[in-house]
Protein backbone atom coordinates (compact mmCIF):
# COMPACT_ATOMS: atom_id res chain seq x y z
CA UNK A 1 0.00 0.00 0.00
CA UNK A 2 2.72 2.46 0.84
CA UNK A 3 4.28 2.06 -2.56
CA UNK A 4 0.96 2.78 -4.20
CA UNK A 5 0.20 5.79 -2.05
CA UNK A 6 3.47 7.41 -3.02
CA UNK A 7 3.30 6.75 -6.73
CA UNK A 8 4.42 9.70 -8.81
CA UNK A 9 3.24 9.93 -12.37
CA UNK A 10 2.67 12.23 -15.34
CA UNK A 11 -0.58 12.78 -17.19
CA UNK A 12 -2.11 14.55 -20.16
CA UNK A 13 -5.67 15.93 -20.15
CA UNK A 14 -7.55 16.28 -23.44
CA UNK A 15 -10.97 17.94 -23.51
CA UNK A 16 -12.33 20.65 -25.78
CA UNK A 17 -14.12 22.33 -22.89
CA UNK A 18 -11.72 24.41 -20.76
CA UNK A 19 -13.87 24.32 -17.63
CA UNK A 20 -13.91 20.56 -17.68
CA UNK A 21 -10.12 20.41 -18.07
CA UNK A 22 -9.84 22.76 -15.12
CA UNK A 23 -12.20 20.65 -13.03
CA UNK A 24 -10.33 17.44 -13.74
CA UNK A 25 -6.99 19.10 -13.01
CA UNK A 26 -8.29 20.48 -9.71
CA UNK A 27 -9.68 17.18 -8.52
CA UNK A 28 -6.58 15.26 -9.54
CA UNK A 29 -4.37 17.71 -7.65
CA UNK A 30 -6.36 16.99 -4.50
CA UNK A 31 -6.68 13.24 -4.93
CA UNK A 32 -3.22 12.53 -6.27
CA UNK A 33 -0.63 15.14 -5.35
CA UNK A 34 2.09 13.00 -6.91
CA UNK A 35 0.52 13.32 -10.36
CA UNK A 36 1.91 16.02 -12.64
CA UNK A 37 -0.25 17.26 -15.49
CA UNK A 38 2.34 17.79 -18.19
CA UNK A 39 -0.01 19.16 -20.86
CA UNK A 40 -3.60 19.96 -21.78
CA UNK A 41 -5.01 19.37 -25.25
CA UNK A 42 -8.12 20.87 -26.83
CA UNK A 43 -8.70 18.23 -29.50
CA UNK A 44 -7.58 14.81 -30.66
CA UNK A 45 -4.83 16.12 -32.92
CA UNK A 46 -3.30 18.20 -30.12
CA UNK A 47 -3.60 15.24 -27.77
CA UNK A 48 -1.47 13.08 -30.06
CA UNK A 49 1.08 15.86 -30.63
CA UNK A 50 1.40 16.64 -26.94
CA UNK A 51 1.56 12.98 -26.06
CA UNK A 52 4.49 12.48 -28.41
CA UNK A 53 6.17 15.56 -27.01
CA UNK A 54 5.76 14.75 -23.30
CA UNK A 55 5.22 10.96 -23.23
CA UNK A 56 3.00 11.02 -20.09
CA UNK A 57 2.13 7.73 -18.39
CA UNK A 58 -1.57 8.52 -18.20
CA UNK A 59 -3.93 10.19 -20.70
CA UNK A 60 -7.40 11.46 -19.87
CA UNK A 61 -9.31 11.69 -23.15
CA UNK A 62 -12.67 13.28 -23.84
CA UNK A 63 -14.37 11.04 -26.40
CA UNK A 64 -16.19 13.81 -28.22
CA UNK A 65 -13.69 16.40 -29.49
CA UNK A 66 -13.51 18.42 -32.70
CA UNK A 67 -11.37 17.11 -35.50
CA UNK A 68 -9.89 13.84 -34.34
CA UNK A 69 -11.99 12.25 -31.62
CA UNK A 70 -10.66 10.92 -28.34
CA UNK A 71 -10.99 7.40 -29.67
CA UNK A 72 -8.83 8.16 -32.69
CA UNK A 73 -6.27 9.72 -30.38
CA UNK A 74 -6.41 6.65 -28.13
CA UNK A 75 -5.68 4.39 -31.09
CA UNK A 76 -2.60 6.45 -31.89
CA UNK A 77 -1.46 6.35 -28.27
CA UNK A 78 -2.64 2.78 -27.78
CA UNK A 79 -0.42 0.80 -25.44
CA UNK A 80 2.09 3.53 -24.68
CA UNK A 81 0.06 4.99 -21.80
CA UNK A 82 -2.84 4.21 -19.50
CA UNK A 83 -5.97 5.71 -20.99
CA UNK A 84 -9.03 6.99 -19.17
CA UNK A 85 -11.94 8.09 -21.33
CA UNK A 86 -14.13 10.94 -20.18
CA UNK A 87 -17.52 11.12 -21.83
CA UNK A 88 -21.01 12.49 -21.50
CA UNK A 89 -22.18 9.77 -23.89
CA UNK A 90 -23.22 7.19 -21.40
CA UNK A 91 -24.82 4.96 -23.97
CA UNK A 92 -22.26 4.32 -26.64
CA UNK A 93 -19.22 4.12 -24.49
CA UNK A 94 -20.30 1.90 -21.67
CA UNK A 95 -20.72 -1.26 -23.67
CA UNK A 96 -17.22 -1.14 -25.04
CA UNK A 97 -15.79 -0.12 -21.68
CA UNK A 98 -17.58 -2.83 -19.77
CA UNK A 99 -14.95 -5.38 -20.62
CA UNK A 100 -12.72 -3.52 -18.21
CA UNK A 101 -9.76 -2.99 -20.48
CA UNK A 102 -10.05 0.79 -20.32
CA UNK A 103 -11.27 2.97 -17.50
CA UNK A 104 -13.83 5.67 -18.11
CA UNK A 105 -15.61 8.53 -16.38
CA UNK A 106 -19.11 9.63 -17.30
CA UNK A 107 -19.64 13.40 -17.08
CA UNK A 108 -20.70 14.89 -14.78
CA UNK A 109 -18.73 12.60 -12.47
CA UNK A 110 -18.22 13.01 -8.73
CA UNK A 111 -15.02 12.94 -6.76
CA UNK A 112 -15.56 9.44 -5.31
CA UNK A 113 -15.79 8.03 -8.80
CA UNK A 114 -12.60 9.82 -9.79
CA UNK A 115 -10.91 8.53 -6.61
CA UNK A 116 -11.67 4.94 -7.71
CA UNK A 117 -10.10 5.67 -11.07
CA UNK A 118 -7.03 7.16 -9.41
CA UNK A 119 -6.61 4.03 -7.26
CA UNK A 120 -6.86 1.80 -10.31
CA UNK A 121 -4.36 3.95 -12.20
CA UNK A 122 -1.89 3.81 -9.33
CA UNK A 123 -2.04 0.03 -9.01
CA UNK A 124 -1.80 -0.26 -12.79
CA UNK A 125 1.44 1.72 -12.71
CA UNK A 126 2.87 -0.43 -9.92
CA UNK A 127 1.81 -3.75 -11.44
CA UNK A 128 1.43 -3.34 -15.19
CA UNK A 129 -0.71 -6.10 -16.63
CA UNK A 130 1.12 -7.57 -19.61
CA UNK A 131 -1.96 -9.30 -20.96
CA UNK A 132 -4.19 -6.25 -21.08
CA UNK A 133 -2.62 -4.80 -24.24
CA UNK A 134 -4.61 -6.96 -26.61
CA UNK A 135 -7.78 -6.32 -24.62
CA UNK A 136 -7.22 -2.57 -24.93
CA UNK A 137 -6.74 -2.85 -28.67
CA UNK A 138 -9.93 -4.87 -28.96
CA UNK A 139 -11.90 -2.37 -26.87
CA UNK A 140 -10.60 0.52 -28.99
CA UNK A 141 -11.58 -1.31 -32.15
CA UNK A 142 -15.09 -1.73 -30.81
CA UNK A 143 -15.32 1.91 -29.81
CA UNK A 144 -14.03 3.13 -33.14
CA UNK A 145 -16.50 0.90 -34.95
CA UNK A 146 -19.29 2.19 -32.75
CA UNK A 147 -18.32 5.80 -33.40
CA UNK A 148 -18.10 5.10 -37.11
CA UNK A 149 -21.51 3.48 -37.08
CA UNK A 150 -23.03 6.48 -35.32
CA UNK A 151 -21.21 9.10 -37.32
CA UNK A 152 -21.61 7.87 -40.87
CA UNK A 153 -23.78 5.12 -42.27
CA UNK A 154 -21.84 2.04 -43.31
CA UNK A 155 -23.30 2.09 -46.84
CA UNK A 156 -21.21 4.00 -49.39
CA UNK A 157 -21.75 7.70 -48.81
CA UNK A 158 -24.38 8.99 -51.23
CA UNK A 159 -24.80 12.53 -52.40
CA UNK A 160 -27.30 14.25 -50.08
CA UNK A 161 -26.87 17.88 -51.03
CA UNK A 162 -26.51 19.55 -54.40
CA UNK A 163 -24.49 22.76 -54.35
CA UNK A 164 -25.93 25.12 -56.91
CA UNK A 165 -25.23 28.77 -57.64
CA UNK A 166 -28.38 30.83 -57.31
CA UNK A 167 -27.70 34.50 -57.81
CA UNK A 168 -24.72 35.38 -55.71
CA UNK A 169 -25.02 32.53 -53.23
CA UNK A 170 -24.38 28.81 -53.30
CA UNK A 171 -27.53 26.97 -52.36
CA UNK A 172 -27.52 23.62 -50.62
CA UNK A 173 -30.40 21.66 -52.11
CA UNK A 174 -31.42 18.42 -50.39
CA UNK A 175 -31.50 15.72 -53.05
CA UNK A 176 -35.03 14.76 -51.97
CA UNK A 177 -36.21 18.07 -53.43
CA UNK A 178 -34.54 17.48 -56.79
CA UNK A 179 -37.00 16.52 -59.52
CA UNK A 180 -34.60 15.84 -62.38
CA UNK A 181 -31.13 16.69 -63.67
CA UNK A 182 -30.44 17.35 -67.34
CA UNK A 183 -27.21 18.00 -69.21
CA UNK A 184 -27.29 21.48 -70.70
CA UNK A 185 -24.24 22.23 -72.89
CA UNK A 186 -21.42 22.95 -70.43
CA UNK A 187 -23.53 22.62 -67.30
CA UNK A 188 -26.13 20.43 -65.72
CA UNK A 189 -29.58 21.84 -65.08
CA UNK A 190 -31.08 21.00 -61.70
CA UNK A 191 -34.86 21.20 -61.53
CA UNK A 192 -35.98 21.16 -57.93
CA UNK A 193 -39.04 22.12 -55.92
CA UNK A 194 -37.72 25.66 -55.49
CA UNK A 195 -36.86 26.34 -59.12
CA UNK A 196 -33.98 25.63 -61.47
CA UNK A 197 -30.25 26.04 -61.17
CA UNK A 198 -27.06 25.16 -63.03
CA UNK A 199 -24.24 23.07 -61.60
CA UNK A 200 -20.89 22.01 -62.99
CA UNK A 201 -21.12 18.35 -62.03
CA UNK A 202 -21.76 16.13 -65.04
CA UNK A 203 -24.57 13.61 -65.39
CA UNK A 204 -21.96 10.87 -65.39
CA UNK A 205 -20.54 12.01 -62.03
CA UNK A 206 -24.01 12.47 -60.56
CA UNK A 207 -25.14 8.97 -61.54
CA UNK A 208 -22.30 7.51 -59.53
CA UNK A 209 -22.90 9.71 -56.50
CA UNK A 210 -26.69 9.65 -56.18
CA UNK A 211 -28.58 6.88 -54.42
CA UNK A 212 -29.70 4.43 -57.15
CA UNK A 213 -32.73 3.56 -55.05
CA UNK A 214 -34.00 7.10 -55.51
CA UNK A 215 -32.52 8.32 -58.79
CA UNK A 216 -32.27 6.68 -62.18
CA UNK A 217 -30.60 7.68 -65.40
CA UNK A 218 -33.19 7.46 -68.19
CA UNK A 219 -31.27 9.08 -71.01
CA UNK A 220 -27.67 9.87 -71.81
CA UNK A 221 -28.33 13.38 -70.52
CA UNK A 222 -31.15 12.90 -67.97
CA UNK A 223 -31.43 11.64 -64.38
CA UNK A 224 -34.85 11.59 -62.72
CA UNK A 225 -35.95 11.36 -59.10
CA UNK A 226 -38.05 8.20 -59.16
CA UNK A 227 -40.40 9.57 -56.50
CA UNK A 228 -41.35 12.39 -58.85
CA UNK A 229 -42.42 10.15 -61.72
CA UNK A 230 -46.18 10.20 -62.32
CA UNK A 231 -46.25 7.82 -65.28
CA UNK A 232 -44.20 6.38 -68.11
CA UNK A 233 -45.65 6.29 -71.61
CA UNK A 234 -44.31 4.01 -74.28
CA UNK A 235 -43.25 5.70 -77.52
CA UNK A 236 -42.16 4.47 -80.89
CA UNK A 237 -39.02 2.45 -81.48
CA UNK A 238 -38.69 1.14 -77.91
CA UNK A 239 -38.37 4.57 -76.35
CA UNK A 240 -40.63 6.11 -73.70
CA UNK A 241 -41.61 9.36 -72.07
CA UNK A 242 -41.67 10.18 -68.37
CA UNK A 243 -44.44 12.44 -67.05
CA UNK A 244 -43.79 14.12 -63.72
CA UNK A 245 -46.04 14.68 -60.74
CA UNK A 246 -47.64 18.10 -60.86
CA UNK A 247 -45.45 19.39 -63.70
CA UNK A 248 -45.85 19.74 -67.42
CA UNK A 249 -42.25 18.80 -68.29
CA UNK A 250 -41.87 15.55 -70.17
CA UNK A 251 -38.55 13.72 -70.06
CA UNK A 252 -37.28 11.39 -72.77
CA UNK A 253 -36.36 7.79 -72.01
CA UNK A 254 -33.90 6.46 -74.57
CA UNK A 255 -33.84 2.91 -75.79
CA UNK A 256 -30.86 1.86 -73.72
CA UNK A 257 -32.58 2.99 -70.48
CA UNK A 258 -36.13 1.73 -71.06
CA UNK A 259 -35.23 -1.33 -68.96
CA UNK A 260 -35.27 0.95 -65.86
CA UNK A 261 -39.06 0.92 -65.95
CA UNK A 262 -39.51 -2.63 -67.18
CA UNK A 263 -40.44 -4.23 -63.89
CA UNK A 264 -42.54 -1.30 -62.74
Amino acid at each position, binding site marked *: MTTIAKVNATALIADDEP*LLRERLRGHLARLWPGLTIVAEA*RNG*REAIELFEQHAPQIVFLDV*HMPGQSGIEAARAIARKAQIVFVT*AHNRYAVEAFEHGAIDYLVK*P*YDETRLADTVERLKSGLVRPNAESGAAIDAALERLAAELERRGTPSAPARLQWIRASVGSSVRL*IPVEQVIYLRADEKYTLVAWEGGEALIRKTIRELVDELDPQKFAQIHRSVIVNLHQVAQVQRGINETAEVHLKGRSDVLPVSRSFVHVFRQM
Partner: protein
Amino acid sequence: MTALATDIGSRTKALLLSVFTWKRLLFTVVTVVVITALVQPIFFTPYHELVWQLLAIALFVQLAFSAGEYWALPGVPRWVAQVLAVVLAGPLATLLLQLALVGGSWSAFVGHRGMVHGFFVVTVLVLVFAPSMALGALYRQRDAQAQHDALAFALEKSELEKQALDARLKLLHAQIEPHFLFNTLANVQELVESGSSLAAPVLRSLIAYLRAAMPLLDHIDATLATEASLVRAYLELMHLRMPDRFAFAIDIPPGLAGLRFPSMALLTLVENAIRHGIDPAEQGGRIDVRAERLVSGEVRVSVADTGAGLLDTATPGTGLANLRERLLVFYGSGARLELAENVPRGVLATISFQG
Protein backbone atom coordinates in the same frame (compact mmCIF):
# COMPACT_ATOMS: atom_id res chain seq x y z
CA MET B 1 -71.41 -31.76 -24.31
CA THR B 2 -68.42 -31.68 -22.05
CA ALA B 3 -68.06 -28.00 -22.72
CA LEU B 4 -71.66 -27.44 -21.69
CA ALA B 5 -71.23 -29.59 -18.58
CA THR B 6 -68.10 -27.71 -17.65
CA ASP B 7 -69.94 -24.48 -18.25
CA ILE B 8 -72.81 -25.47 -15.97
CA GLY B 9 -70.35 -26.80 -13.40
CA SER B 10 -68.36 -23.62 -13.33
CA ARG B 11 -71.52 -21.51 -13.22
CA THR B 12 -72.80 -23.47 -10.24
CA LYS B 13 -69.51 -23.05 -8.49
CA ALA B 14 -69.52 -19.32 -9.17
CA LEU B 15 -73.12 -19.16 -7.94
CA LEU B 16 -72.33 -20.92 -4.68
CA LEU B 17 -69.28 -18.76 -4.15
CA SER B 18 -71.31 -15.61 -4.72
CA VAL B 19 -74.13 -16.74 -2.42
CA PHE B 20 -72.03 -17.89 0.45
CA THR B 21 -69.69 -15.02 0.91
CA TRP B 22 -69.21 -14.12 4.58
CA LYS B 23 -70.70 -10.72 4.04
CA ARG B 24 -73.89 -12.06 2.53
CA LEU B 25 -74.27 -14.82 5.10
CA LEU B 26 -73.77 -12.43 7.97
CA PHE B 27 -76.35 -10.06 6.51
CA THR B 28 -78.87 -12.89 6.15
CA VAL B 29 -78.31 -14.19 9.66
CA VAL B 30 -78.66 -10.77 11.27
CA THR B 31 -81.78 -9.99 9.26
CA VAL B 32 -83.38 -13.31 10.17
CA VAL B 33 -82.55 -12.92 13.87
CA VAL B 34 -84.11 -9.45 13.96
CA ILE B 35 -87.20 -10.40 11.98
CA THR B 36 -87.74 -13.50 14.08
CA ALA B 37 -87.64 -11.40 17.22
CA LEU B 38 -90.23 -9.06 15.73
CA VAL B 39 -92.67 -11.74 14.57
CA GLN B 40 -92.14 -14.30 17.34
CA PRO B 41 -95.18 -13.13 19.40
CA ILE B 42 -97.61 -14.32 16.71
CA PHE B 43 -96.07 -17.84 16.60
CA PHE B 44 -96.43 -20.79 18.94
CA THR B 45 -93.05 -22.06 17.85
CA PRO B 46 -90.31 -21.17 20.33
CA TYR B 47 -87.85 -18.50 19.26
CA HIS B 48 -84.81 -20.76 18.81
CA GLU B 49 -86.73 -23.12 16.52
CA LEU B 50 -88.29 -20.29 14.55
CA VAL B 51 -84.86 -18.75 13.94
CA TRP B 52 -83.57 -21.96 12.35
CA GLN B 53 -86.66 -22.39 10.23
CA LEU B 54 -86.64 -18.82 8.96
CA LEU B 55 -82.91 -18.96 8.40
CA ALA B 56 -83.32 -22.07 6.25
CA ILE B 57 -86.00 -20.31 4.22
CA ALA B 58 -83.95 -17.15 3.94
CA LEU B 59 -80.91 -19.04 2.64
CA PHE B 60 -83.07 -20.80 0.07
CA VAL B 61 -84.51 -17.49 -1.05
CA GLN B 62 -81.05 -16.01 -1.23
CA LEU B 63 -79.94 -18.92 -3.40
CA ALA B 64 -82.92 -18.26 -5.67
CA PHE B 65 -82.01 -14.60 -5.85
CA SER B 66 -78.47 -15.42 -6.98
CA ALA B 67 -79.72 -18.14 -9.32
CA GLY B 68 -81.92 -15.54 -10.98
CA GLU B 69 -78.77 -13.54 -11.59
CA TYR B 70 -76.95 -16.46 -13.24
CA TRP B 71 -79.73 -18.10 -15.16
CA ALA B 72 -81.74 -15.11 -16.28
CA LEU B 73 -84.24 -16.06 -19.00
CA PRO B 74 -83.63 -14.57 -22.40
CA GLY B 75 -85.77 -11.50 -22.95
CA VAL B 76 -86.45 -11.03 -19.25
CA PRO B 77 -84.55 -8.23 -17.50
CA ARG B 78 -82.20 -9.61 -14.91
CA TRP B 79 -83.74 -7.75 -11.99
CA VAL B 80 -87.23 -9.01 -12.90
CA ALA B 81 -85.94 -12.58 -13.00
CA GLN B 82 -84.30 -12.14 -9.61
CA VAL B 83 -87.33 -10.63 -7.87
CA LEU B 84 -89.55 -13.28 -9.48
CA ALA B 85 -87.23 -16.01 -8.25
CA VAL B 86 -87.45 -14.59 -4.73
CA VAL B 87 -91.26 -14.38 -4.83
CA LEU B 88 -91.55 -17.98 -6.00
CA ALA B 89 -88.82 -19.36 -3.75
CA GLY B 90 -90.34 -17.85 -0.57
CA PRO B 91 -93.59 -19.85 -0.42
CA LEU B 92 -91.93 -22.92 -1.93
CA ALA B 93 -89.22 -22.97 0.73
CA THR B 94 -91.77 -22.48 3.49
CA LEU B 95 -93.92 -25.30 2.18
CA LEU B 96 -91.00 -27.68 1.84
CA LEU B 97 -89.84 -26.86 5.35
CA GLN B 98 -93.28 -27.40 6.85
CA LEU B 99 -93.61 -30.69 5.01
CA ALA B 100 -90.21 -31.77 6.26
CA LEU B 101 -91.28 -30.96 9.82
CA VAL B 102 -94.28 -33.31 9.58
CA GLY B 103 -92.26 -36.11 8.00
CA GLY B 104 -93.20 -35.32 4.39
CA SER B 105 -96.86 -36.19 4.77
CA TRP B 106 -99.18 -33.83 2.83
CA SER B 107 -102.29 -34.91 4.76
CA ALA B 108 -100.57 -34.35 8.07
CA PHE B 109 -99.61 -30.83 6.96
CA VAL B 110 -103.09 -29.94 5.66
CA GLY B 111 -104.72 -31.41 8.78
CA HIS B 112 -102.57 -29.36 11.13
CA ARG B 113 -104.19 -25.94 11.48
CA GLY B 114 -101.18 -24.40 13.15
CA MET B 115 -98.95 -25.54 10.33
CA VAL B 116 -101.17 -24.13 7.59
CA HIS B 117 -101.55 -20.92 9.54
CA GLY B 118 -97.79 -20.75 10.01
CA PHE B 119 -97.30 -21.38 6.31
CA PHE B 120 -99.43 -18.40 5.39
CA VAL B 121 -97.84 -16.13 7.94
CA VAL B 122 -94.32 -17.05 6.83
CA THR B 123 -95.29 -16.74 3.18
CA VAL B 124 -96.67 -13.27 3.79
CA LEU B 125 -93.55 -12.36 5.75
CA VAL B 126 -91.29 -13.60 2.99
CA LEU B 127 -93.35 -11.86 0.32
CA VAL B 128 -93.22 -8.61 2.23
CA PHE B 129 -89.53 -8.57 3.12
CA ALA B 130 -87.77 -10.61 0.44
CA PRO B 131 -88.69 -8.67 -2.72
CA SER B 132 -87.93 -5.34 -1.10
CA MET B 133 -84.62 -6.66 0.13
CA ALA B 134 -83.94 -8.14 -3.29
CA LEU B 135 -84.62 -4.77 -4.86
CA GLY B 136 -82.36 -3.12 -2.30
CA ALA B 137 -79.60 -5.58 -3.10
CA LEU B 138 -80.07 -4.99 -6.80
CA TYR B 139 -79.90 -1.26 -6.28
CA ARG B 140 -76.65 -1.62 -4.34
CA GLN B 141 -75.24 -3.87 -7.04
CA ARG B 142 -76.03 -1.32 -9.68
CA ASP B 143 -74.39 1.32 -7.55
CA ALA B 144 -71.28 -0.83 -7.21
CA GLN B 145 -71.30 -1.40 -10.96
CA ALA B 146 -71.52 2.34 -11.57
CA GLN B 147 -68.69 2.90 -9.15
CA HIS B 148 -66.64 0.22 -10.85
CA ASP B 149 -67.33 1.78 -14.23
CA ALA B 150 -66.35 5.19 -12.91
CA LEU B 151 -63.11 3.78 -11.57
CA ALA B 152 -62.36 1.98 -14.80
CA PHE B 153 -63.06 5.18 -16.68
CA ALA B 154 -60.78 7.19 -14.41
CA LEU B 155 -58.08 4.57 -14.82
CA GLU B 156 -58.36 4.67 -18.58
CA LYS B 157 -58.27 8.45 -18.54
CA SER B 158 -55.15 8.56 -16.43
CA GLU B 159 -53.61 5.96 -18.71
CA LEU B 160 -54.28 8.18 -21.72
CA GLU B 161 -52.90 11.19 -19.90
CA LYS B 162 -49.81 9.21 -19.08
CA GLN B 163 -49.40 8.25 -22.71
CA ALA B 164 -49.74 11.85 -23.79
CA LEU B 165 -47.15 12.85 -21.23
CA ASP B 166 -44.84 10.08 -22.39
CA ALA B 167 -45.15 11.32 -25.92
CA ARG B 168 -44.27 14.83 -24.78
CA LEU B 169 -41.33 13.57 -22.80
CA LYS B 170 -40.09 11.60 -25.77
CA LEU B 171 -40.29 14.73 -27.88
CA LEU B 172 -38.46 16.59 -25.16
CA HIS B 173 -35.85 13.90 -24.94
CA ALA B 174 -35.31 14.14 -28.66
CA GLN B 175 -35.02 17.90 -28.45
CA ILE B 176 -32.82 18.32 -25.39
CA GLU B 177 -29.88 16.08 -26.05
CA PRO B 178 -28.60 14.22 -23.00
CA HIS B 179 -25.10 14.92 -24.26
CA PHE B 180 -25.73 18.64 -24.21
CA LEU B 181 -27.41 18.55 -20.83
CA PHE B 182 -24.81 16.44 -19.05
CA ASN B 183 -21.86 18.29 -20.50
CA THR B 184 -23.43 21.57 -19.46
CA LEU B 185 -24.13 20.23 -16.00
CA ALA B 186 -20.51 19.10 -15.74
CA ASN B 187 -19.50 22.68 -16.47
CA VAL B 188 -21.92 24.05 -13.91
CA GLN B 189 -20.54 21.58 -11.39
CA GLU B 190 -17.02 22.90 -11.88
CA LEU B 191 -18.18 26.50 -11.57
CA VAL B 192 -20.04 25.77 -8.37
CA GLU B 193 -17.22 23.74 -6.85
CA SER B 194 -14.60 26.32 -7.65
CA GLY B 195 -16.83 29.06 -6.27
CA SER B 196 -16.76 30.89 -9.60
CA SER B 197 -18.88 34.01 -9.94
CA LEU B 198 -19.94 32.65 -13.33
CA ALA B 199 -21.96 29.90 -11.67
CA ALA B 200 -25.04 32.04 -11.06
CA PRO B 201 -25.35 33.50 -14.58
CA VAL B 202 -24.70 30.10 -16.15
CA LEU B 203 -27.35 28.46 -14.04
CA ARG B 204 -29.68 31.27 -15.01
CA SER B 205 -29.05 30.53 -18.67
CA LEU B 206 -29.58 26.83 -18.14
CA ILE B 207 -32.82 27.41 -16.28
CA ALA B 208 -33.99 29.88 -18.90
CA TYR B 209 -33.18 27.36 -21.59
CA LEU B 210 -34.91 24.46 -19.88
CA ARG B 211 -37.91 26.53 -18.95
CA ALA B 212 -38.24 27.82 -22.45
CA ALA B 213 -37.56 24.50 -24.13
CA MET B 214 -40.01 22.45 -22.10
CA PRO B 215 -43.38 24.14 -22.29
CA LEU B 216 -42.70 25.62 -25.72
CA LEU B 217 -42.95 22.30 -27.48
CA ASP B 218 -46.57 22.80 -28.30
CA HIS B 219 -46.80 26.45 -27.55
CA ILE B 220 -48.82 28.29 -30.11
CA ASP B 221 -48.16 31.75 -28.68
CA ALA B 222 -44.44 31.61 -29.39
CA THR B 223 -43.01 34.71 -30.97
CA LEU B 224 -39.71 35.55 -32.56
CA ALA B 225 -38.77 37.18 -29.22
CA THR B 226 -39.49 34.08 -27.10
CA GLU B 227 -37.65 31.95 -29.62
CA ALA B 228 -34.71 34.36 -29.60
CA SER B 229 -34.46 34.20 -25.82
CA LEU B 230 -34.45 30.40 -25.97
CA VAL B 231 -31.71 30.49 -28.58
CA ARG B 232 -29.75 33.03 -26.55
CA ALA B 233 -29.86 30.85 -23.44
CA TYR B 234 -28.67 27.87 -25.46
CA LEU B 235 -25.87 29.80 -27.17
CA GLU B 236 -24.71 31.32 -23.90
CA LEU B 237 -24.31 27.81 -22.52
CA MET B 238 -22.37 26.75 -25.59
CA HIS B 239 -20.17 29.82 -25.28
CA LEU B 240 -19.46 28.95 -21.67
CA ARG B 241 -18.34 25.51 -22.74
CA MET B 242 -16.21 26.68 -25.64
CA PRO B 243 -15.18 30.21 -24.66
CA ASP B 244 -11.99 30.07 -26.71
CA ARG B 245 -13.48 28.93 -29.99
CA PHE B 246 -17.08 30.02 -30.12
CA ALA B 247 -18.77 33.42 -30.29
CA PHE B 248 -22.26 34.47 -31.27
CA ALA B 249 -24.56 37.43 -31.85
CA ILE B 250 -28.33 37.69 -32.08
CA ASP B 251 -29.92 40.61 -33.92
CA ILE B 252 -33.70 40.68 -33.93
CA PRO B 253 -35.07 44.19 -34.70
CA PRO B 254 -37.67 45.26 -32.11
CA GLY B 255 -40.23 45.67 -34.88
CA LEU B 256 -40.08 41.95 -35.68
CA ALA B 257 -39.80 40.59 -32.13
CA GLY B 258 -43.56 40.27 -31.68
CA LEU B 259 -44.09 38.19 -34.84
CA ARG B 260 -45.68 34.77 -34.44
CA PHE B 261 -42.99 32.13 -34.86
CA PRO B 262 -43.11 28.31 -34.55
CA SER B 263 -41.48 27.30 -31.29
CA MET B 264 -38.14 25.48 -31.46
CA ALA B 265 -37.75 26.32 -35.17
CA LEU B 266 -34.83 28.66 -34.69
CA LEU B 267 -33.37 26.44 -32.00
CA THR B 268 -33.31 23.52 -34.44
CA LEU B 269 -31.22 25.57 -36.87
CA VAL B 270 -28.90 26.83 -34.15
CA GLU B 271 -28.40 23.34 -32.74
CA ASN B 272 -27.55 22.12 -36.24
CA ALA B 273 -25.06 24.94 -36.65
CA ILE B 274 -23.37 23.93 -33.41
CA ARG B 275 -23.45 20.21 -34.11
CA HIS B 276 -22.38 20.20 -37.74
CA GLY B 277 -20.53 23.51 -37.92
CA ILE B 278 -18.85 24.56 -34.68
CA ASP B 279 -18.46 21.25 -32.83
CA PRO B 280 -16.41 19.44 -35.47
CA ALA B 281 -14.22 22.47 -36.30
CA GLU B 282 -10.97 22.58 -34.35
CA GLN B 283 -10.85 26.34 -34.82
CA GLY B 284 -14.50 26.66 -33.87
CA GLY B 285 -16.33 29.65 -35.34
CA ARG B 286 -19.18 32.04 -34.75
CA ILE B 287 -22.94 31.97 -35.16
CA ASP B 288 -25.00 34.98 -36.19
CA VAL B 289 -28.75 34.93 -35.81
CA ARG B 290 -30.53 37.70 -37.71
CA ALA B 291 -34.02 38.74 -38.65
CA GLU B 292 -34.95 41.30 -41.29
CA ARG B 293 -37.96 42.43 -43.26
CA LEU B 294 -37.44 42.83 -46.99
CA VAL B 295 -39.01 45.62 -49.01
CA SER B 296 -41.44 43.03 -50.38
CA GLY B 297 -42.73 42.50 -46.85
CA GLU B 298 -41.22 39.06 -46.56
CA VAL B 299 -39.48 38.28 -43.27
CA ARG B 300 -36.19 36.42 -43.26
CA VAL B 301 -34.74 34.81 -40.17
CA SER B 302 -31.27 33.41 -40.68
CA VAL B 303 -28.66 31.43 -38.81
CA ALA B 304 -25.14 31.76 -40.21
CA ASP B 305 -22.20 29.80 -38.89
CA THR B 306 -18.54 29.89 -39.86
CA GLY B 307 -17.92 26.29 -38.86
CA ALA B 308 -16.91 23.17 -40.73
CA GLY B 309 -19.59 23.44 -43.40
CA LEU B 310 -21.74 20.69 -44.78
CA LEU B 311 -20.33 17.69 -46.60
CA ASP B 312 -22.15 16.83 -49.82
CA THR B 313 -22.76 13.44 -48.34
CA ALA B 314 -23.85 14.54 -44.86
CA THR B 315 -27.14 12.77 -44.22
CA PRO B 316 -29.72 15.45 -43.51
CA GLY B 317 -31.31 14.76 -40.13
CA THR B 318 -35.04 14.47 -39.76
CA GLY B 319 -34.88 17.82 -37.96
CA LEU B 320 -34.73 19.89 -41.15
CA ALA B 321 -37.43 17.93 -42.96
CA ASN B 322 -39.69 18.24 -39.90
CA LEU B 323 -38.97 21.93 -39.69
CA ARG B 324 -39.85 22.43 -43.34
CA GLU B 325 -43.20 20.75 -42.77
CA ARG B 326 -43.88 22.71 -39.61
CA LEU B 327 -43.19 25.98 -41.41
CA LEU B 328 -45.68 25.09 -44.13
CA VAL B 329 -48.30 24.21 -41.53
CA PHE B 330 -47.57 27.34 -39.51
CA TYR B 331 -47.27 29.98 -42.23
CA GLY B 332 -48.81 28.34 -45.28
CA SER B 333 -47.24 27.58 -48.62
CA GLY B 334 -45.30 30.85 -48.81
CA ALA B 335 -42.85 29.76 -46.12
CA ARG B 336 -39.44 28.36 -47.05
CA LEU B 337 -36.39 26.93 -45.38
CA GLU B 338 -33.26 27.26 -47.48
CA LEU B 339 -29.68 26.28 -46.88
CA ALA B 340 -26.73 27.90 -48.58
CA GLU B 341 -23.00 28.08 -48.20
CA ASN B 342 -21.96 30.89 -45.91
CA VAL B 343 -19.14 33.27 -46.86
CA PRO B 344 -16.25 32.69 -46.22
CA ARG B 345 -17.22 29.27 -44.83
CA GLY B 346 -19.91 27.38 -42.96
CA VAL B 347 -23.63 27.22 -43.60
CA LEU B 348 -26.34 29.84 -43.88
CA ALA B 349 -29.86 28.62 -43.05
CA THR B 350 -32.75 30.95 -43.83
CA ILE B 351 -36.42 30.79 -42.94
CA SER B 352 -38.58 33.05 -45.08
CA PHE B 353 -42.27 33.80 -44.54
CA GLN B 354 -44.91 36.45 -45.06
CA GLY B 355 -45.27 37.98 -41.61
